[in-house]
């Protein structure tokens, strides 16, 4: 049986088109390569 309340929690708000700009400003575009590079630099 599906628990309606729990199921409802899975539905997060969808990104509104007017908010794309602010979303892009805060977007973290780093990939694993960047993360490894940072770790290597920190350990040097």
């Amino acid at each position: 049986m599906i628990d309606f309340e729990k199921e409802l929690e899975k539905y997060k708000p969808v990104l509104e088109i007017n908010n794309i700009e602010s979303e892009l400003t805060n977007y973290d575009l780093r990939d694993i390569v960047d993360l490894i590079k940072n770790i290597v630099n920190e350990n040097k």
Partner: protein
Amino acid sequence: MEVICPYCGKIQEAPVDCLGCGQNIKWVDQLYRQSQTVYTKGYVLAGERNLTEALQFLKEATQLNKYNVMAHNLLGIIYFELGDVGNALKTWILSTSIQKEDNLASDYLEKIHKENKALEKYKQAIKLYNEAAEYLKNKNDDMAVIRLKKAIHLHQQFVDARNLLALTYIEQAKYTKAMEQVKRVLAIDAYNPNALRYLKEVQYHQVECKNKENELLDTKKQISLKSYGGAHKVINRGHVLGTAIIYFIFGVVCMLCVQVALVLPSKTEALQSALDTVTRKAEDDLGKLRGSLAEANTQITLLTDENKKITAQKEELQSMNSKLAQQSRINTVIELKNTKKWVEGAELLYRIAPEQLDAAYKEQYDELVKVVYPKAADVIYAEGLSQYNRREYVEAFAQFEKVQMYVPKTTVAANSLYYMGMIEEQNSQMDKAMQYYETVCAEYSGISAYYKAKERLKKIAG
């Protein structure tokens, strides 16, 4: 494969050490290759319409290598296909920022921006979906369903909206409607995990309903068989044939007995006695069987009666519970009325079933309807009008619809109908607009909305 050195940014063809800064970048090449493998998996899954899973692989591909433009672009396409236009646009914009020239994402963005009307529809659909989710959190199913339906009407591919509508229908036990939405989702995203779970749930309930129907049919059959027991005996030819055979055998035995009695009279008595014993035993067994049958029948009757009683009790309790809930709502509406929260009061009042109220509460309900609905309609109409003036047509339309619900056949309702027509005109839905105007002209006369609707009709016709 071309690799971008993370230390100095030099682009080069897969060396062990960077030709620019001399750092070891073999591991970068390996990560790029891994990203390409994951992208291929996502691509294959997308081809099989397994969009949700493809989405995960493509996200992983971009996390392994942010310069994997193909993965970004396909990710955007899948977002778009699932109706998540906001994320699709975001992904394509990111893609164009990574690779400015010869990038398919630029074409996608250009195409979307050219189709202004479609973009406006997507915007509204997403807004309505987010509102619906909020309404559901506040347990306002009806308003959520209106918004979700409108969102889907504006954007047919909107998978999340269809899934949420299916879930709401399941909660409302409207399984056929839920199934319709689930099927549409699976046509877009064949292995969508939410839709697959809802499908199971709907199928389970549909089977349960069928079983209940069959049980009901069986019970009806049993009752009709019991009522026509006499007829059953007449048409049971097997039983008659069996009896005839027994009589026949009995006759043969008797004939033999007579013959033997003539030859051996002494044996006749013994045979007669044995026959008597067998007959008595058969009669005893028959008696016992009849007793058991009668007992079983009594038990069935008792159980049926008990079941009826329990069902009646359950129904009574449910009715009491519902009645109490309705009464509690009446009290809340009174509180809202006293604090002049007309709109909230009207929403709650609309959800009350007056036929379940006692005479006293029914009287209060009628009083509240007279006061709360007109006040709420005025507030909602004013809000709708200001949204209309701000060109927020979807929101304004919903407000005007509410006015129709609360105070039909009033001047405010006529004005709302007129503006609903105007909104449909803005959406280039001339047929719908005309329907609204015609309703105003048919149901009202001598008021401003009537003359304005008539004018619009003339303009559209001319």
